[in-house]
């Protein structure tokens, strides 16, 4: 056999090894099929799918809304939803499973919540801190960033995530009325409690908030808003937030610290100049939609 001929099996072996390296060899073993559920052992899941995130987000938002009143002003809500879409398309995640949607909370608190998947709740109190469309954009860009970065899902306790991933990897479809569905629902309840508790009580870590601030500056700049409005928004909040308050004062880093982190970014980038005509157009529609918020 010539040298070249001897190379053929080697090439085939290399091809096979190359293919194997792209496959997960630990998967594919089928296990027993229970009465209420079909099971298959697969590789370990390492994150929630967008569909799972969607159901978690819906439940978190429903929970938050169970103890909060909605400010049902269609004009203001429509304005915020168009603005939100205008920002989301310039984010790193313009599409989520169910899309981005905004609702106003009828509360004087300075507060906002971004449920996983893109359901954003913002209080009248926080909207009153805004003085222009650019500052409202700053609020929404920050909340959008929490969704893009999946911070809500990060709030789920590790043990719960492991259980959920195992469940997602191991099960087919839990049939209505089965013990498996009950098990999943119990896990779901605990998962929702983790996220809601973080949003309402403990807040995200300082690092995650700073991360969302930086991404918000980026989204604003891409959309054409002046990122300096973000800092202006923080300065207003600093004057209105009361120490010991149950709103942003409790769940967010001190606004002075946040300003300290955004300042270098703003200083390092060219200013965004808005033509007077555009300033007037934005101010006019902002006043029409949120002037009486």
């Amino acid at each position: 056999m010539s040298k070249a001929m001897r190379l053929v099996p080697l090439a085939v072996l290399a091809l096979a090894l190359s293919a194997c390296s792209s496959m997960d060899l630990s998967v594919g073993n089928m296990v027993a099929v229970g009465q209420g559920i079909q099971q298959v052992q697969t590789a370990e899941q390492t994150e929630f799918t967008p569909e799972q995130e969607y159901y978690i987000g819906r439940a978190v938002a429903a929970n938050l809304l169970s103890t909060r009143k909605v400010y049902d002003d269609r004009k203001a809500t429509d304005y915020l939803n168009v603005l939100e879409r205008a920002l989301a398309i310039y984010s790193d995640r313009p599409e989520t499973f169910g899309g981005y949607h905004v609702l106003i909370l009828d509360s004087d608190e300075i507060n906002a919540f971004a449920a996983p998947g893109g359901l954003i709740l913002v209080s009248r109190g926080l909207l009153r801190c805004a003085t222009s469309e650019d500052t409202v954009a700053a609020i929404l860009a920050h909340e959008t960033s929490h969704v893009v970065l999946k911070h809500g899902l990060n709030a789920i306790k590790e043990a719960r995530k492991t259980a959920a991933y195992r469940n997602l990897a191991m099960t087919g479809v839990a049939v209505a009325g089965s013990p498996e569905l009950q098990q999943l629902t119990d896990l779901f309840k605990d998962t929702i409690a983790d996220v809601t508790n973080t949003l309402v009580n403990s807040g995200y870590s300082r690092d995650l908030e700073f991360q969302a601030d930086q991404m918000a500056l980026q989204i604003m700049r891409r959309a054409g808003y002046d990122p300096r409005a973000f800092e202006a928004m923080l300065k207003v909040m600093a004057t209105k937030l009361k120490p010991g308050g149950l709103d942003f004062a409790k769940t967010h880093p001190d606004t002075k610290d946040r300003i300290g982190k955004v300042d270098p970014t703003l200083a390092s980038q060219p200013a965004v100049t808005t033509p007077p005509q555009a300033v007037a157009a934005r101010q006019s529609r902002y006043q029409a939609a949120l002037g009486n918020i």
Partner: protein
Amino acid sequence: MSKICLAVAVCLVLASAAAFAAGPSQMSVTVQDVKVRATPSALGRIVGSLVYGDRVTILDQPAGSPQSWRKISMPQKGIQGWVSLSALTEKDVKLQAGSEQVQHGASSGEVALAGKGFNEDVEKQYKEEGNVDYTWVDRMATYNPTDDQVAAFLQKGGLNTSGGAQ
């Protein structure tokens, strides 16, 4: 003969390396629904719609960074155009997690079974047990501004009207 064999061997190795270096040739839609656009822009002309689980062929992608759009085709629907990468996954999303699917024992790297885990049934049971009201959540989901509204909003406000185009 030996030269031909050597050439075949080299081609095989190179071809395999190229295949694994390239991006995926097929992807699946991982959101409820997404518009297919004539251009890589969130405000580009709509040429069709895809829904969760649709499997598409990846045709091309624009140069430049970030490469957040993919040119796709779905012959079954007669659609060809651009889709935001955030709406796609490399996994093969299977909508029917029935016995046939399960029997094959697909790996999670290859397949994401839709409707698995936290799903509509779990939400239904959660609602009933906790007496949780989803009225406003369902209403929120209907707040969907049209492309025309968003484009006009951006244009009148002197904002970026590219729609994320690169």
